[in-house]
């Protein structure tokens, strides 16, 4: 049990570093770097916790991205900036790199394999990885967009502004 938690935390830590790396690439304001680290951490921890309880990786990614989207709304309010500045770098660590890579390798092989049985095997490998990559990506984008759509305004600032 302890091992699982430590593994989860180390994954979260590195996901945070990945998120901050992309945030720097996207030139975010300096004050948002620490919240982005936390958001990326939370997203990956939620995702892997879901997967530990045997929820499929697509749904787990969607739930993780939704968590990021919700916390990004609060971060946007606290650290002044549109939510997308916080949420996009934070979900990038959840992008299904390995699946997309396997799909690419599968395509490369498909173009050269001659033997029929081998072809079927490679085809099923490629399509299963490719579909997973595609649906995870859609789940991530939808998960990030969902909290903003539920808030029904383009920014949390608008809601505050209307109250006053």
């Amino acid at each position: 049990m302890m091992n699982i938690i430590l593994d989860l935390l180390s994954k979260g830590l590195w996901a945070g570093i990945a998120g901050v790396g992309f945030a720097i690439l996207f030139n975010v304001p300096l004050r948002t770097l620490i919240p982005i680290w936390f958001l990326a951490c939370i997203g990956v921890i939620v995702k892997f916790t879901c997967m530990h309880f045997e929820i499929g990786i697509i749904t787990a990614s969607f739930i993780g991205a939704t968590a990021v989207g919700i916390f990004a709304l609060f971060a946007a309010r606290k650290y002044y900036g549109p939510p997308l500045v916080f949420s996009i770098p934070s979900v990038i660590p959840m992008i299904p790199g390995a699946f997309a890579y396997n799909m690419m390798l599968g395509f490369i092989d498909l173009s050269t394999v001659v033997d029929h049985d081998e072809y079927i095997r490679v085809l099923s490998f490629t399509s299963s990885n490719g579909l997973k990559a595609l649906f995870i990506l859609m789940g991530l984008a939808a998960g990030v967009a969902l909290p903003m759509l539920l808030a029904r305004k383009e920014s949390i600032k608008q809601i505050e502004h209307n109250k006053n």
Partner: protein
Amino acid sequence: MKDLRKEDKINIGSTLLEAGSLLMSSGASTMRIRHTMNRIANALGYKIELMITHRALSITLIDEEGEHLFSRIKRISPHGVNFRVVSGICHMSWNIIDDKWSLEMINKELNRLKSLPHYPRLLILIAVGFADAGFCHNIGGGTYEMIISLIATFIGLFVRQEFMKRKFNPYICVYLAALTASFIACCSRFIPLDIMTNKALATSVLFLIPGVPLINSITDLIDGNIQNGIIRGINGLIISFAIALGLLTTGLIFKLQLL
């Protein structure tokens, strides 16, 4: 309002166009651009009608009595993600409402935002290198794989920046970066250590993934800006294709049999 000088109308329109095109090229979603420009225009006492596309922005300025004042189209400069500008303009649009900013102040702020520096180049290279090392860790790579992924990313991103500086086609820049990064990661096969080349290779090109175009694409589609959503999605797909082509080239060079 009626005796507004002609130059004033032109100035207001141009400022709005400038703000909108900066937002578009810095990676804001279509809905956000529309809301932000409307907010600025309303704060200055005008109404606007907009047509927002991926590479051009068209505006019509209307005064409160519905009289047409000004129309113009502006081309949008090539896209490069810069969230500092997006954040700054959105922040500014609220200041304009709250503190009743004048046009000169808005222009000054836009110029300031445009001239804001990026992070130092070395910091970007190292941070993105560590980002890919993080990816590598999370798909189960060990220390060696992480180091290889870091080095490959560092050099790959350097190559991309150099070609971008020389104004190559952006997709070709991505292709060359993917080729360099995957080539370097693949070279780790010749190191006499127990290294899972697969994992280093898979994560060494992840710094190129078009995260912003793809996520903005889905956001636009959900918001109902279907045309822009499709365009952004296809842009993301072409970038992915360029990455795949880079990997494919490496695969051919090393005769990869990884399946």
